[in-house]
């Protein structure tokens, strides 16, 4: 992988003498001119390696041991090589021996982690005997190619936003008829599990729900309230538990659109008995911290609690605080984020005046996007955040409230 470091020539008098010796005559003769002796390839030169790792002389020497000493001089070339990193080879299954259907959720149009896990589980079954994975979801299949999908069936786009479980189930049943797949996998999410059970009830087949491990001969799941592991041959209909399979990495399949005689519309003639579905607005402060998506959090740097409450209302965010704030009684105890409070998994965390104690950072490890406002540039929270603002919370909060109201009225 790495080329050997530069070699200093090692002087070996005996080897040089042997190289200069000519044995053709009556007695051995020694050549006068020097002959290059073979160098010892295994010898490393610590001084050369140290020189190559030196990135700064002044004011004190600094070494970067992570980079390869031999390639230190050709760093730009290495950068170019990384930029042109080859895509993984396209794997084509032209004549599949059988089909594995993966019915995906795709909440909000994006491929969720759970969807990728379902495809990974389907690949386990497909790769065992030369089968192909057929993904079924709304939207196009391009994003699913790198997740491991061989064929893709697109459902009507309108179904992405509407709540149409009966039509989804009818479409799945129609695909079951048309493609006769060997197995059908669903994610064990609220929507996916619901559709899976509707399909199983309609087909009169047994559903193996919440699969935890899967092989061509055996699938297991939790039963009896999680105290037993139940194993069986893989049944035709299965739901895949969350976080049981690692999503695939570094693969590329074709995700070719599958030509079908419009089985997607098979669900259209079903008269739905459930209708008028609409989202209800939820009071963000009534949600528990572990299930909310957007948290506005206060620390010791917040003194203006009036604007903090006003800001929470303007943003539609759930209010929370650090331990200090809850100890002081500014917020109730169940609003505490951190190791001794709630470990949150929100999508966005807006922190005012929080320095970032290790216990607090532990509580926000699962947060995707962190915004921190703090007066201390060297606070741990500033290092953790995706957007850090070194300013006083009491100045920024009213400005943010004004900005939100301005934009809302404009």
């Amino acid at each position, binding site marked *: 992988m790495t080329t050997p470091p530069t070699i200093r020539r090692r002087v070996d008098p005996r080897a040089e003498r042997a190289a200069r010796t000519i044995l053709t005559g009556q007695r051995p003769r020694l050549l006068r001119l020097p002959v290059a002796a073979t160098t010892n390839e295994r010898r490393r030169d610590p001084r050369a390696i140290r020189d190559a790792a030196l990135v700064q002389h002044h004011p004190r020497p600094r070494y970067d041991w992570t980079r390869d000493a031999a390639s230190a001089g050709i760093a730009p070339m290495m950068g170019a090589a990384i930029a042109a990193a080859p895509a993984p080879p396209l794997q084509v299954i032209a004549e599949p021996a059988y089909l594995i259907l993966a019915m995906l959720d795709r909440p909000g149009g994006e491929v969720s982690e759970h969807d990728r896990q379902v495809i990974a589980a389907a690949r386990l079954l497909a790769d065992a005997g030369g089968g192909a994975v057929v993904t079924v979801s709304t939207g196009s299949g391009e994003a699913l190619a790198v997740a491991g999908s061989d064929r893709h069936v697109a459902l009507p786009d309108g179904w992405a936003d509407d709540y149409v479980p009966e039509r989804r189930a009818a479409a799945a049943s129609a695909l079951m008829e048309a493609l006769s797949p060997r197995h059908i996998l669903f994610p064990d999410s609220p929507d996916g599990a619901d559709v899976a059970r509707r399909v199983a009830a309609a087909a009169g087949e047994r559903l193996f729900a919440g699969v935890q491990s899967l092989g061509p001969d055996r699938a297991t799941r939790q039963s009896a309230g999680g*105290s037993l592991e139940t194993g069986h041959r893989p049944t035709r209909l299965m739901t895949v538990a969350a976080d049981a399979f*690692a999503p695939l990495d570094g693969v590329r399949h074709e995700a070719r659109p599958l030509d079908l005689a419009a089985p997607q519309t098979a669900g259209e003639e079903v008269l739905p008995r459930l209708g008028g579905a609409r989202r209800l607005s939820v009071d963000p402060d009534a949600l528990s911290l572990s299930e909310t998506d957007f948290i506005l959090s206060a620390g010791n740097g917040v003194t203006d609690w009036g604007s903090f409450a006003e800001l929470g209302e303007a943003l539609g965010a759930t209010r929370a605080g650090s331990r200090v704030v809850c100890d002081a009684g500014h917020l109730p105890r169940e609003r505490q984020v951190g190791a001794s409070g709630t470990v949150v998994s929100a999508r966005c965390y807006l922190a005012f005046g929080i320095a970032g104690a290790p216990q607090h950072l532990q509580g926000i490890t699962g947060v995707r996007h962190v915004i921190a406002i703090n007066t201390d*540039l060297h606070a741990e929270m500033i290092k953790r955040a995706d957007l850090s603002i070194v300013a006083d919370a009491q100045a920024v909060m009213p400005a943010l409230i004004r900005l939100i109201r301005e934009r809302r009225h404009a």
Partner: protein
Amino acid sequence: MHNVAVLLSIGRHPVSGRARRAATDAQALEMALALRPRRLTAIHAGPATDTEALRAYLGMGLERLTLLTLPEGTDPIEPLIAHLRQFDPSVVLTGRQAEDGEGSGMLPYLIARGLDAAVVPDVVRIGPTNAPDAMAGAADLVQALPRGQRRALTATGRFVATIHPSAPPARASAFGPARRGVIEPVAAQATADLFLSDCEHRPWRPKPKLMRVKRGGSALDRLKAATESKSGKGQLLVNPTAEAGALAIYDSLVEQGMLP
């Protein structure tokens, strides 16, 4: 809501393993009692073991409970459908998943198929519909979604609803009513569950947690990716004006989809 049926199971305490009232089934009974139906039917189907745990449901204000006694290892779906057909309920309430046994969560769906009813999963509220153009017998339901969200929908005709754990909590069980309540055993015929007897069972052992493993790069890169939390990659504004700071926050929130 004249005729409501509740399907109750025997739960299992997750730590002690003792028989108890199942948590979501108790919430289903609570919701059924809150509906004040003209006729409320509570049914349990299963082997005649641990039936004393059913008295916890009676202690919530039920007067009587039907116990369909089945042999061990049989499928309760057929006898339940046959029994429910006699009562012709407009609403059937039950928990989401059994705390003991197979726990596949299929029972409400199979019952609904047998009764030709709609299924509504994860219900937290049931009420008569407010819409003026709705058919008679339509009901407004509220469903629980992930991340604390709620969805309202209308069901027409008969429906089977499974109750979500965030529905109103079940009332406490009182001792006196639990003793006075009547459990009516009814013998029923059922077919053996061949699939379950075909499965093999063993105690569950917790599996290692799935970790995101970064491939490629040097060993040091992989170690860093596995052990270090993300830090130092964000945007940093030092002492901006309050307006500039607020604008940066606003733009970031819009980018994340948190603000319209």
